[in-house]
């Protein structure tokens, strides 16, 4: 069993607070991703769990055993560093067996474990090479192998894919997903790339400024973000935001007027919202359609259209100089300066109050 519980974790460097009270539960076998912008504290959180940083306050428990003050080696965790941190003067085999040697395990067991890890990661033919003779992807696998041999309760990954080129990144992402499945271990993974978060995680933890914004499954966070930050962070291309004002609202819906004057009736609970208050409308590119000018909700001028083949992403400027990102079919011609009509899928629009918090929808529809 490898349940990790974090209670009110705080970390400060002198006067600067990096982690401002983190509460988190991670269940056995879960693949948890810490994601957030640079400086949000996700690496610090990971390193605090690992024991490489001392915490200023709070507690960490592994299966009900408190590990907050324990040395890293005694926490039964293994970490894969962003730069792989391989021992350059040791062969691949030695790199992987080092920890076991330090733990004074017998040679036969060590060889067995190393061989097994090498097999899983397809490193068997590289065992006698030194790190400098390996490619980036191979080095990364050795770093992972080093963790596997220890059979830890929890695997920690610190931005493992960021040093790989694009093609290798995608391939390794798939391998990591496969690895999680095969080892069935608890994995905590830190990244700034929301695509990795969406594709790999069982549970996503979005961090910002040292605090947790939201925790949940990728789909949960994608379709039901609790605030504007999470909504804007997940999803590629980003959600578009339009400022507006509440005209009227009750428990059956809200009437919102956008800056441009367009009025929309949204299936969002208007109970707790005051008339005239400022709100922000959020809508994802796939929930805006290009229609012909006359039958549209409103119009805009096409700035740039990015033709990807499968889709066309159009960046449309409204009359009030807001930019909307719209997903159009791949065949959409889209010329610079065209006036296009836009239609919004109102049931999938999000509304955020003046503080950025999401206002509840009437029904929790997913896709």
């Amino acid at each position, binding site marked *: 069993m490898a349940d990790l519980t974090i209670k009110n974790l705080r970390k400060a460097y002198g006067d600067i607070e990096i982690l401002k009270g983190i509460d988190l539960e991670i269940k056995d076998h879960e693949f948890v991703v810490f994601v957030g912008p640079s400086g949000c504290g996700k690496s610090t959180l990971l390193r605090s769990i690992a024991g490489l940083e001392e915490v200023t306050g709070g507690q960490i428990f592994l299966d009900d055993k408190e590990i907050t*003050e324990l*040395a890293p080696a005694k926490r039964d965790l293994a970490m894969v560093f962003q730069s792989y941190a391989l021992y350059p003067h040791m062969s691949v085999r030695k790199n992987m067996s080092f920890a076991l040697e330090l733990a004074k395990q017998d040679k036969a067991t060590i060889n067995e474990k190393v061989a097994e890890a090498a097999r899983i990661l397809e490193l068997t033919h590289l065992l006698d090479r030194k790190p400098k003779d390996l490619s980036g992807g191979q080095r990364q696998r050795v770093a992972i192998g080093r963790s596997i041999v220890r059979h830890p309760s929890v695997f920690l990954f610190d931005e493992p894919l960021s040093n790989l080129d694009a093609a290798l990144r995608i391939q390794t992402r798939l391998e990591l997903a496969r690895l999680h499945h095969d080892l069935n271990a608890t994995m905590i993974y830190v990244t700034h790339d929301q695509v990795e978060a969406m594709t790999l995680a069982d549970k996503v933890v979005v961090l910002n400024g040292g605090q947790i914004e939201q925790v949940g499954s990728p789909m949960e966070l994608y379709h039901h973000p609790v605030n504007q930050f999470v909504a804007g962070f997940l999803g590629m291309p980003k959600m578009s935001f339009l400022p507006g004002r509440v005209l009227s609202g009750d428990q059956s819906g809200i009437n919102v007027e956008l800056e441009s004057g367009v009025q929309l009736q949204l299936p969002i609970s208007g109970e707790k919202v005051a008339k005239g208050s400022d709100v922000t409308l959020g809508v994802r590119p796939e929930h805006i359609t290009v229609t012909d000018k006359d039958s549209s909700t409103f119009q805009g001028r096409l700035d740039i259209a990015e033709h990807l083949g499968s889709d066309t992403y159009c960046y449309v400027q409204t009359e009030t100089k807001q930019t909307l990102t719209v997903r159009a079919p791949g065949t959409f011609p889209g010329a610079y300066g065209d006036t296009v009509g836009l239609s919004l899928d109102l049931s999938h629009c999000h509304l955020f109050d003046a503080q950025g918090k999401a206002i509840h929808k009437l029904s929790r529809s997913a896709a």
Partner: protein
Amino acid sequence: MGIAKKNARISRYMVSPSVLVLLAWMIVPLSMTIYFSLIRYNLLYPGENEFVGLENFEFFLTDEGFTAGMGNTLILVGAVLLITVVLGILISVLVNQKFFGQGIVRVMLISPFFIMPTVNALVWKNLLLHPVSGVFAAVSIFFGAEPVDWFTDYPLFSIIMIVSWQWLPFAILLLMTALQSLDQEQQEAARLDGAGPIALFWHLTLPHLARPIAVVVMIETIFLLSIFAEIFTTTGGGPGFETTNLAYLIYSQALLQFDVGLASAGGLIAVLLANIAAFFLVRLVGKSLTDKT
């Protein structure tokens, strides 16, 4: 106890031997020097060690050798600096191109630095500068000129030659290394813009070398202030005081005249001078500590 606190404690234990040892090295002799400089203490006249205030400093500064000593020190340091830095720049730039046997050339250029100062001094005095059998004499005769009796006629200059030869590699080595980090792309861009080799040197190379040159100047200054072995081995400070620098002067007062009080006063003055140079060097080095390049 937290991991960090434990580590902080261990690290303090690991650093303290060095600090304590160097602290002792600094404080004990220096304070003794200060003490001695304030009393009358001559090993030839034991017993009377009374406090005389700044008398020793007065004597030292008015000593017949002092003006010569200071002057010679400044001339020595200045001349060697000039020669080593100018030649150092030119040679290191010259050697920075690729050509046949570049490696061997570099090895030859830095060799003088590794020769013992006493060897250096005697090889120059005897084998090279000797007015009868020295190589310089032979070359002069070859060109039909009268050989120069270097150490008799130009003693200070002879010392300057010897010391410059010893320190030229230092400048070359440091500047050569600094040149390696010269931005190639910048040079190519300038060449495309039409810059010739002289323009390249003046506008790109020299500014890049400004910092290393400053380092060379400061480190050399600090060590050149204390030139001793070459003088000791060749001229013994003479004739008269012509090749006495500050360091040698103090030495002669301490170990030849046994006037401890006077020598200590002189020593403090030397320390003061060195401190001025050291101040700037430490600032420069400190900056390089925080720089990423």
